[in-house]
């Protein structure tokens, strides 16, 4: 067991399941998938300039590309192209450009296609965060902690506005909430989360951390606050379970966690269905 890996995983899934509730409620799941894919292009472009995978500009630069993606998708939707098709056009293009640049320019560098897809949780703790040779722990742990704190503060601070734009956009507009500002702030937040999770679990599996716990909890409760708490609990539980299983059988951690995420959701759906069936039968 490695406590450092476990804490990085748990902090990441805490952040993901927290923002995941709002992402599923606002029908942004596939948009989030697009964002997490284009992170690759952002990371590759910034890396070409900065030549350092741990550069703080990496998070900022890649997040800008993510927000740009969403903006492009919105432009295309306004040009009479269905939103799903717009998403399906933009993110493979950006992702492919990222992969091609990596194939051509970044052979044998710190980022590889494999780690971009699946994350490199197993090796991430070797990059340490040092101040004057004093070891403060793995860099990824510090980043995960900072992102978790920022996200929590943001959600607490903008809770009312987020709730309004998630459930009733028109009412939100009329009651003076500037929907556009909250929308873009939220987009920046999820982009930063996507970039930070990129290193940990890779572009495809981060979606599982975000969507899995939140829709599992949405099966059981309609209250927003309860959904958020339940989602966080489920997210942390799944990561813990996933880590234990992966450690025991020596298999890829991020893959196990996302399989557990989908497995638990289907189990919960089945259990709820059975419960309703029997309740109807008895009454």
């Amino acid at each position, binding site marked *: 067991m490695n406590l450092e890996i476990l804490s990085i995983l748990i902090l990441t899934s805490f952040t993901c399941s927290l923002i995941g509730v709002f992402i*599923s409620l606002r*029908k*942004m*799941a*596939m948009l*989030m*998938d697009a964002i997490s894919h284009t992170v690759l292009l952002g990371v590759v472009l910034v890396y070409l300039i900065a030549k350092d995978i741990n550069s703080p500009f990496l998070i900022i630069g890649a997040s800008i590309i993510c927000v740009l993606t969403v903006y492009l998708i919105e432009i*295309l939707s306004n*040009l009479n*192209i*269905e939103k*799903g*098709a717009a*998403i*399906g*056009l933009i993110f*493979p*293009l950006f*992702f*492919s*450009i990222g*992969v*091609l640049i990596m*194939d*051509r320019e970044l*052979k044998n560098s710190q980022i590889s*296609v*494999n780690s971009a*897809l*699946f994350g490199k949780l197993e090796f991430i703790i070797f990059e340490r965060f040092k101040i004057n040779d004093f070891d403060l722990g793995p860099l990824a742990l510090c980043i995960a902690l900072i992102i978790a704190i920022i996200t929590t503060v943001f959600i607490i601070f903008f809770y009312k506005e987020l709730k309004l734009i998630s459930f009733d956009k028109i009412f939100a507009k009329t009651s003076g909430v500037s929907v556009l500002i909250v929308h873009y702030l939220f987009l920046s937040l999820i982009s930063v989360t996507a970039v930070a999770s990129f290193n940990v679990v890779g572009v*495809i*599996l*981060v*979606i*599982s951390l*975000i*969507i*899995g716990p*939140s*829709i599992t909890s*949405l*099966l059981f409760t309609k209250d927003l606050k309860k959904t958020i708490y339940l989602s966080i609990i489920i997210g942390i539980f799944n990561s813990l379970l996933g880590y234990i299983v992966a450690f025991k*059988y*020596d*298999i*890829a951690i*991020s*893959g*196990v*966690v*996302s*399989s557990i*995420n*989908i*497995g638990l*959701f*289907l189990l919960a*759906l089945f259990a*709820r*269905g059975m419960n309703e069936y029997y309740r109807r039968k008895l009454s």
Partner: protein
Amino acid sequence: METLIANNYILIIVTIGTTLIGCVSGILGTIITLKKEALVGNALAHASFPGVILSFMIMKNKNMELLLFGAGCFSAISLFIIKKIKKYSKIKYDSSLALILSGFFGLGQVLLSIVQNTGNPDQSGLENFIFGEVATILFSDIEIISIISIIVICIIILLRKEIKLFIFDEEFFKSLGYSSKFLDSLITILVIVVIMIGIRFVGVILMTSVLIAPSIAARQWSNFFYNNLILSGFFGGISGLLGTLISLNNPDLSIGPIIVVISSLIAVASIIFKKVK
């Protein structure tokens, strides 16, 4: 001329295969884009990944038909789960797509890491299904893929009137006595079949773009359904052709991303052209 063909025999065969794949995905993509189900293909393609690995684990060899059969089975299973989630819960449709695609891809990664731990030397090449590859493709593979593509294209050509009615006026279509359930299932089966043969070339992650991009491009040039089908097939075919040629000249680039970049650029250029016009 004869020696040119003889020297480049493999190259020509591979190019024919990828052009056909591009063409058939473009044509089928038009149908699913018009049905507003563009992203289903994305989920189904990702979900086919564990199928490829699992069928390798069971059969212990890399026989193409078996691997693709496994891929098709997992696509079908994932579609079944998506339908069940829709039926039994109020979870938003795109959330369930996102969950399915990441969950199944994660499962694929787990299976792949198990296979790699066993140290079986045959397993190298399985990860080619992620981004696609043509360098090690066999003539028999191209043969199967070409035959299937032609069959799919023929089915769509034969049923073009029914499909058109089904997409644009389902009520009228039903009133003529056709079964919309049957046609819907047929289209779904065709999508799964095209994904099965497409992932070998472009890979599971980018398959969605090969389906969607040509149809968006075609949509900018014409509003007629048949023209859309033809144009989309043409754009898809051209992307496949150019992509293969570029990839064969630059062996360190993966073929899937090249095809995607070309077909997306055609789409973006078409959108800009329409806007300017």
